[in-house]
C-alpha cells in the first residue's frame, strides 16, 4: 500500500501551480496517471522516488514512512527501491547497452536477469553499442530494460512506450504485464494511450492542475463495465466523399477504417478530422483471433 499526501508549489504555465495530491495505491497494483501535459504527473513520480522534495505531507509505503514533513523523515532515493524509466531515457553515455543494464544490478544479484532482459527487449544484437548510436526507440527499450534489472518493488514508467512502433509497443506491454504479474511489483505508469492504459492498468488516476480529479479501476474509468444496448465507437473523420445524393464518410476507429453512408444534412456538419461517434442498433459481431 502506497499512500501519498503531498503538497508542492510548482512553477507552472499560468504562474504558480500548487500540486495537492492524495493518492492510495494498493500493493502490487498497476496504476496509471493520466492527464494533460503539465498536470503534474512527472512531478508526482519524482516526489515518490525521492528526487523532488515535497513542501509538506507524507509518503507511506507499506509499513514504512518514506517521507514525512512533520516527523522530519526523508528517505534517500537509494533507500526507496524504485525502478524509474525517465522521460529522457537518462542512459549512461559512457556505457554500452549491456553495461547500462549491468550497472543496475544489485549486490549479489543473479546476472541471468541481464540476458533475460536483453532478449526480451530485443537488445542482444545491440548490447555492445553506445547509447548515442541508438535510434530513439532503441534507447527507450534500453531504459525500460535497465529499470527492470533491480526488480524494484515499485516500478515507475514515465511514458516509456510513447516512441515505440506498434509491434515493439505491444511486445513490451506484454512483457510489462508479465513482469508485473510475476514479481507482483507495484507499477505506476504515465501514459496518454487509452488502449495501453486499459490493457495494462488496474486503476487510473486523472490529474488536472496538480490534483486528482477522477479515479477508478481502469474498467470503470473508461466505462468498460457499462453495458450498453447499442455498440458505439468513437473515431475520426478521414474523408468525406460525395456519391450521387449520398455522402460516404470514412472514419478511422482504432487502426481500422470503416465507411458510413450519410445523408447530406448530416454530412454538412462534419469535416475531416472531426471526432465522431459511430453507433449501431443491430450488430452481431463474430470474434476471431488474428
Amino acid at each position, binding site marked *: 500500500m502506497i499512500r501519498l499526501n503531498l503538497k508542492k508549489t510548482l512553477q507552472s504555465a499560468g504562474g504558480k501551480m500548487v500540486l495537492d495530491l492524495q493518492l492510495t495505491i494498493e500493493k502490487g497494483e498497476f496504476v496509471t496517471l493520466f492527464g494533460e501535459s503539465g498536470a503534474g504527473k512527472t512531478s508526482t513520480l519524482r516526489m515518490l*522516488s*525521492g*528526487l523532488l522534495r515535497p513542501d509538506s505531507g507524507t509518503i507511506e509505503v507499506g509499513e514504512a514512512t518514506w517521507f514525512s514533513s512533520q516527523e522530519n523523515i526523508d528517505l*534517500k*532515493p*537509494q*533507500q*526507496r*527501491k*524504485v*525502478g*524509474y524509466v*525517465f522521460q*529522457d531515457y*537518462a542512459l*549512461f*553515455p*559512457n*556505457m554500452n547497452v549491456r553495461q547500462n543494464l549491468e*550497472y*543496475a544490478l*544489485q549486490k549479489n544479484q543473479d546476472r541471468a536477469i541481464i540476458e533475460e532482459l536483453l532478449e526480451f527487449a530485443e537488445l542482444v544484437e545491440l548490447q555492445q553499442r553506445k547509447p548515442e548510436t541508438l535510434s530513439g526507440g532503441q534507447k527507450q527499450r534500453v531504459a525500460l530494460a535497465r529499470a527492470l*534489472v*533491480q526488480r524494484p518493488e515499485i516500478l515507475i514508467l514515465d511514458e516509456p512506450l510513447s516512441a515505440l512502433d506498434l509491434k515493439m509497443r505491444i511486445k513490451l506491454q506484454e512483457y510489462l504485464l508479465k513482469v508485473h504479474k510475476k514479481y507482483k511489483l507495484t507499477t505506476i505508469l504515465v501514459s496518454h494511450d487509452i488502449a495501453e492504459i486499459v490493457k495494462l492498468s488496474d486503476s487510473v488516476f486523472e490529474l488536472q492542475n496538480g490534483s486528482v480529479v477522477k479515479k477508478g479501476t481502469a474498467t470503470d474509468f473508461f466505462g468498460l463495465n457499462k453495458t450498453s444496448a447499442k455498440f458505439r465507437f468513437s473515431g475520426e473523420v478521414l474523408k468525406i466523399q460525395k456519391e450521387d445524393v449520398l455522402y460516404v464518410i470514412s472514419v478511422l476507429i482504432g487502426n481500422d477504417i470503416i465507411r458510413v453512408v450519410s445523408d447530406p444534412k448530416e454530412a454538412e456538419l462534419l469535416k475531416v478530422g472531426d471526432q465522431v461517434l459511430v453507433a449501431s442498433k443491430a450488430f452481431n459481431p463474430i470474434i476471431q483471433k488474428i
Partner: protein
Amino acid sequence: MDWQPLVLTFKLAVVTTAILFVVSIPIANWLSSTKSKIRPVLETLVSMPLVLPPTVLGFYMLVAFSPENAFGNWLNEYLGIKLIFSFGGLVVASVIYSLPFMVQPIQAGLSSLPSTLKEASYTMGKSKMTTLLKILLPNIKPSLLTGIVLSFAHTVGEFGVVLMIGGNMPGKTKVASIAIYDEVEALNYAAANSYSLILFSVTFVILLLVYLTNGGYFKRFAQ
C-alpha cells in the same frame, strides 16, 4: 647535462597531479551540487592561490610551514612532517598552487551534465560515491583531461613557489624549472636551452600521448 632535475620535475608533476585529482573531485563535486549560500565565496577562494606572485605565495608558505612557527612546529613535532626544504613540501605547495586548475574544469564539467543521469543512478540504489565514480566522472572526460593537463603543465613550469619552499637542493628539491632558471641567471644560455628543449619535448610527448589516448587514436589503431 644533469638529469636529476628533469627526473625530479616529472616525479613532482606526476605526484602533484595525482594528488590534485583525488583532492579536487570531492571539492568540485560539492561545489557543483550544493545550494549553500557560501558557495560563491568558496568558488572564489579556490582561485585565490593564483593571485599572489608565486614566490610571494611561497614565502607565506615558507613562514607558515617553518618549524619556527606554531603550525610548522606542530606538523613537525606531532606528525613528523617537514614541509620546508623537502620534496614533500614541494608537493604540498604545488598542490595548493595548482588547485584551481583542477577544481574549476571538473566543477564546470559536472555542472553541465543532465541531472537525470545522477537521479537514474540514485534510483538504482547506487550511492553518491558510486554514482560519481562510475557515472558522472566518466562522462566529463574532456573536463578531467583539461584539469590534468593544466595541472601537470603548470607544475612542470612552476618555479617560484617551489624555489622558495624547496630551497633549490640538488636531487631533493632542485627541479628542472629551477635548473633552467639558474642557467639563464648564470648566463649559460646553451645549457638553459638544452634543458628547456628536453623539458619541452618530454612534456610535449606526454601530453600528446594523453590527447591521443583520449581521442581514441590507439583504440582505433588496435582494432
